[in-house]
């Protein structure tokens, strides 16, 4: 408070002399008439006197559906919300004030700030203003009761430098900050202590509101040296106080008018020789807003809000009705509970899947290891079995033949026969061991090694039996892997087939063919023998 500025350009101030009453408008006169009667209409506003006329989100008007359509929805990225309030024409015969509060954002009632102003001016001898000081009042003073006579007053004091050349001090009050401002302002005990710069001059205290004047027992009275100004002269009033100068009052009950008081030039306070003044006064007020207004809210966080509008009397007393509009600022998707639940679900599902995959792979690896261990185990079993089946019998036979040879050692011919048998058997055993070793040796684990071995063996075997063998082999062989077990079983099967030809077929020719067609290996062993009778 107390911003000094020049008053030269204040064109709105039109000093009006009460007594000489030149040319008043009928409106001003009726205002005064009303003042003189001193009556007050009872303000019973059944419905809210103010309503929301428009709401704009970032400059775009929102449709106002009323309570039945649910809360007004706003996007959460709305940067500014502009609300336009307007008086409801049919609601009240007399202008009223309003205040509003956005529950969920505002901590208390607000109004589009209307200001009333008490000011002092330092004037020179020609009554030109040199400088001034303004003291703004808005809202409600603590201890306001709705009536100036019973309200608690605020003590105020300000020390002001007297500018060079100033000889007079003028008090000035206005309700125009701006015109829509409505309410009551009361000033009491305005007093100036003039502090001298020269020690010879006495310091003195002067009351600026005289107890004398015209009609001093009425609201419309005028203290000596004071005058009304403004577009509505009824706004400036007094309240008589027993044994004391009256209260200086501004009661602005019109949103389209303003008014106030000033001390007239001729009655100004002489300031010559003073360097400083101490200004003391007491004030009580309730100041607000009538008429339409447009207010802005900045970014509102997501949530639910209630815009409440309350109608007030000119004196700032709530008139018992309130209108409520619900607003809902819809949260963006990433702020909703559902989104986080979904996200948590997805994340845990993904984690679960990952863990499952991981354990499955580990189990699979473990299974593979076990499988290969089992395969090795099986292979060992097979080799053991083969050793026993193929070699065991022959070795037993060998031992038996050795026994016989020993028993017939005396008979050279018999012994030679046995030794020949032993020799043949030993040779056969050697061959069998060779075959087994070949089959087990991993160096031979491909088709490329197997087919030549098989054809070579077959040819030798059949030739030894006196049978010619025809071979029918592919020109080139792929390097297809063939496991030890596969080689083993294929070889033994072919061997058995060859054995059958030699022993039972009475053939004159045999044939071995190997074909690979569409990744299928076919080995055929044929003879031209007598065949086998059908079963």
């Amino acid at each position, binding site marked *: 408070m107390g911003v000094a500025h020049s008053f030269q350009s204040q064109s709105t101030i039109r000093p009006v002399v009460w007594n000489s009453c030149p040319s008043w408008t009928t409106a001003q006169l009726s205002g005064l008439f009303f003042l003189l009667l001193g009556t007050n209409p009872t303000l019973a506003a059944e419905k809210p006197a103010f309503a929301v006329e428009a709401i704009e989100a970032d400059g775009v008007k929102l449709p106002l559906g009323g309570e039945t359509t649910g809360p007004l929805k706003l996007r959460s990225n709305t940067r500014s919300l502009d609300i336009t309030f307007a008086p409801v024409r049919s609601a009240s015969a007399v202008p009223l004030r309003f205040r509003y509060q956005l529950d969920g954002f505002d901590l208390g009632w607000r109004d589009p700030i209307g200001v009333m102003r008490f000011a002092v001016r330092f004037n020179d001898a020609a009554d030109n203003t040199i400088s001034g000081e303004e003291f703004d009042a808005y809202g409600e003073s603590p201890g306001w009761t709705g009536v100036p006579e019973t309200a608690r007053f605020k003590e105020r004091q300000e020390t002001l430098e007297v500018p060079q050349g100033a000889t007079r001090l003028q008090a000035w009050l206005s309700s125009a900050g701006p015109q829509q401002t409505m309410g009551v302002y009361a000033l009491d005990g305005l007093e100036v202590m003039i502090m001298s710069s020269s020690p010879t001059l006495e310091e003195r205290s002067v009351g600026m509101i005289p107890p004398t004047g015209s009609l001093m027992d009425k609201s419309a009275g005028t203290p000596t040296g004071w005058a009304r100004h403004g577009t509505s002269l009824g706004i400036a009033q007094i309240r008589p106080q027993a044994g004391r100068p009256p209260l200086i009052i501004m009661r602005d009950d019109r949103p389209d008018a303003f008014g106030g008081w000033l001390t007239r030039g001729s009655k100004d306070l002489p300031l010559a020789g003073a360097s400083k003044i101490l200004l003391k006064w007491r004030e009580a007020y309730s100041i607000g807003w009538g008429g339409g207004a447009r207010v802005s809210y900045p970014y509102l966080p997501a949530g639910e809000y209630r815009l409440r509008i309350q109608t007030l009397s000119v004196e700032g007393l709530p008139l018992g009705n309130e209108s409520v509009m619900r607003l809902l600022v819809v949260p963006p998707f990433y702020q909703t509970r559902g989104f986080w639940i979904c996200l948590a679900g997805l994340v845990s599902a993904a984690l679960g899947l990952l863990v499952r995959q991981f354990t499955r792979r580990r189990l699979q690896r473990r299974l593979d290891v076990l499988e290969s261990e089992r395969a090795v185990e099986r292979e060992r079993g097979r080799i053991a079995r083969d050793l026993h089946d193929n070699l065991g019998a022959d070795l037993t036979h060998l031992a038996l033949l050795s026994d016989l040879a020993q028993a017939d050692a005396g008979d050279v011919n018999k012994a030679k026969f046995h030794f020949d048998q032993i020799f043949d058997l030993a040779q056969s055993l050697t061959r069998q061991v060779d075959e087994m070793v070949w089959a087990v040796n991993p160096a031979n684990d491909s*088709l490329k090694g197997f087919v030549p071995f098989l054809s070579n063996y077959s040819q030798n075997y059949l030739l030894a039996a006196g049978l010619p063998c025809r071979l029918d082999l592919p020109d080139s062989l792929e*390097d297809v892997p063939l496991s030890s077990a596969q080689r083993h079983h*294929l070889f033994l*099967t072919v061997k058995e*087939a060859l054995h059958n030809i030699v022993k039972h077929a009475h053939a004159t020719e045999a044939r071995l063919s190997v074909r690979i067609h569409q990744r299928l*290996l076919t*080995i055929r062993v*044929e003879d031209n023998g007598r065949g*086998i009778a059908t079963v």
Partner: protein
Amino acid sequence: MDAVSQRCDGTGNMHQRLSSIGGTFERTSTPNNGTAVSLTLPLGKA
């Protein structure tokens, strides 16, 4: 060409060998016109 397998002279054994490595064994024979045995085995990749 219709006499097939399952004789006591080792055909069963030969069958068993081939099926243990995932292959098939087949023998066809006609009296006085020879015998043919056929071993087939699906191969792995090169």
